[in-house]
């Protein structure tokens, strides 16, 4: 396999700037790789070859003329298909938006374009970001590059698989309840959900506004940090976005964890956590201790209710966010001249949405309805406050909270489709950070029979610097034994 595909983003940028390789050459190599492996991986829904080659040629031309180029010049980025690119098909892996061409660029896309990143295509996902395995895509599942019979995780499965399979340098996904950290863990790469508000959601097709963030995915921590810095920061089009303050993530790429205080909640190693996963994560904790960090076991009782709280809030917000899909202005419209409005609307949505999406809309509508709102939605929000408070208190004594990203190893395709609850339970460790709005990163720490295991770290709001520093350190010292099957 060509070594050019394994280059990190920073190596790539410097080689392209010095013209050791051209952006066009690199992009062509990526598309060659895509053509070779896509029938086994299925990470992409749409490829944007024309845009990509045009951009690559433009970058090469500006470099030849000695002009300035951006921080990501020549770096190839795959974009989850719920992030809008102007004039490009954006489907959310749903029949409802199968032919929807976005009329505008998401803010993160504008920022990537301004840093000369090359957009290679739109990646596969669970429909409307609802899922943990990418099996709920209406265009077929994505396969884990480390074991083609297994899931890559979800909902950003395509974004993670394409990075792991060397189809792209880096990618963007979205993380509402773990949808970037889960596939990063299952695919043996790094993924980080930023502090709520750090990365603009303008252009992210909404599932649950109070929980989700566009999130970076990369093969190494340095690339992740670079990508984050290029897209983070206040956006006037997203009222929930904030500035990063004095974060300078490049400076955190140092192998020094001395004095870092780590809290290990026993709730993250509860019933349902595989022994091999537990063992692997504890090895990572002991490694960090050996490098100068300290750890203590702690009890965070409110975490027992995190999953229930998350699903009620997420489904409620989803029922509201997906009400717009009426077939009037965009999206699927069946030819229903003969039906009354109410019937036509229902039929259209019945056909356009998949089973899991319909399930969540119905449950969310129920949870918000009169007579049930107080019992479910309001109660879930109160629990959410308790979780935030308990974590806040813990962060007074600790810099980081650590645990597994996923309680289990990557499972086989079809294994968890019989009972939706079985799939929901996989999110038990990841939803916490979304509820609390805090940043969380997944780093590969080990493997079991070739299947990747990730360790998750959470930090207080706007302390991505701590996550990057400790993640970088772990990366230098833990080299999981992983092999691509493509």
């Amino acid at each position: 396999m060509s070594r050019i595909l394994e280059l990190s983003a920073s190596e790539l940028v410097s080689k392209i700037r010095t013209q050791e390789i051209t952006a066009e050459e690199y992009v062509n190599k990526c598309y060659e790789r895509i053509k070779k492996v896509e029938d086994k991986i299925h990470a992409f829904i749409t490829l944007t070859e024309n845009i990509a080659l045009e951009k690559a040629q433009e970058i090469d031309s500006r470099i030849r003329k000695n002009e300035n180029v951006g921080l990501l010049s020549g770096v190839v980025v795959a974009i989850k298909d719920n992030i809008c690119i102007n004039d490009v098909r954006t489907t959310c892996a749903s029949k409802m938006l199968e032919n929807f061409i976005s009329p505008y660029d998401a803010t993160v896309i504008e920022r990537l374009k301004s840093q000369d990143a090359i957009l290679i295509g739109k990646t596969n996902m669970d429909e409307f970001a609802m899922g943990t395995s990418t099996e709920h895509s209406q265009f077929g599942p994505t396969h884990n590059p480390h074991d083609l019979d297994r899931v890559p995780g979800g909902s950003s499965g395509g974004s993670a698989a394409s990075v792991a399979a060397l189809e792209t340098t880096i990618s963007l996904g979205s993380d509402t309840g773990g949808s970037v950290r889960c596939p990063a863990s299952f695919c043996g790469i790094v993924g980080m959900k930023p502090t709520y508000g750090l990365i603009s959601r303008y252009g992210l097709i909404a599932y649950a506004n109070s929980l989700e963030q566009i999130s970076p995915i990369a093969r190494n921590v340095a690339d992740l940090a670079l990508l984050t810095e290029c897209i983070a920061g206040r956006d006037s089009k997203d009222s929930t976005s904030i500035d990063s303050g004095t974060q300078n993530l490049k400076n955190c790429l140092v192998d020094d964890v001395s004095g870092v205080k780590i809290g290990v909640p026993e709730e993250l190693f509860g019933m349902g956590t595989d022994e091999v996963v537990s063992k692997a994560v504890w090895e990572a904790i002991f490694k960090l201790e050996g490098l100068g960090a300290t750890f203590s076991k702690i009890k965070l009782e409110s975490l027992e209710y995190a999953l229930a709280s998350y699903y009620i809030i997420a489904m409620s917000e989803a029922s509201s966010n997906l009400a717009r899909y009426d077939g009037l202005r965009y999206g699927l419209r069946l030819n229903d001249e003969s039906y009354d409005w109410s019937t036509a609307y229902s039929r259209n949505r019945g056909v356009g949405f998949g089973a899991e999406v319909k399930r969540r809309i119905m449950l969310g509508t129920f949870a918000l309805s009169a007579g049930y709102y107080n019992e479910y939605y309001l109660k879930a929000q109160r629990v959410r406050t308790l979780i935030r408070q308990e974590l806040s208190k813990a962060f007074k004594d600790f810099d980081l909270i650590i645990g597994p990203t996923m309680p289990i190893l990557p499972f086989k395709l079809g294994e968890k489709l019989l009972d939706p609850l079985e799939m929901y339970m996989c999110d038990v460790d990841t939803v916490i950070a979304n509820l609390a709005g805090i940043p969380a990163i997944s780093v590969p720490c080990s493997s079991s029979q070739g299947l990747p295991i990730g360790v998750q770290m959470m930090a207080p709001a706007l302390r991505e610097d701590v996550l990057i520093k400790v993640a970088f350190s772990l990366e230098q010292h833990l080299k999981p034994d992983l092999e691509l099957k493509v």
Partner: protein
Amino acid sequence: MMATTELKVKIGLEVHCQLTNLKSKLFCSCSSDYRQSPPNTHVCPVCMGTPGSLPVLNRKAVEDASSDCFSFEYAD
């Protein structure tokens, strides 16, 4: 003898502020001057509810409506 009951009446007033002086819409920067324009001309991804768009609250609307409220001296 018949007992008499005193009836108490509670009257609620729902008061709306119609902010006709605003130049742009409540949640986006499209012009709010619709009167002479054909349909669907002062539109953008936000007010069309296009997937991925987000509303941004009109600051002047909040300021104007608030000052209207304060001008009714509410007794406690």
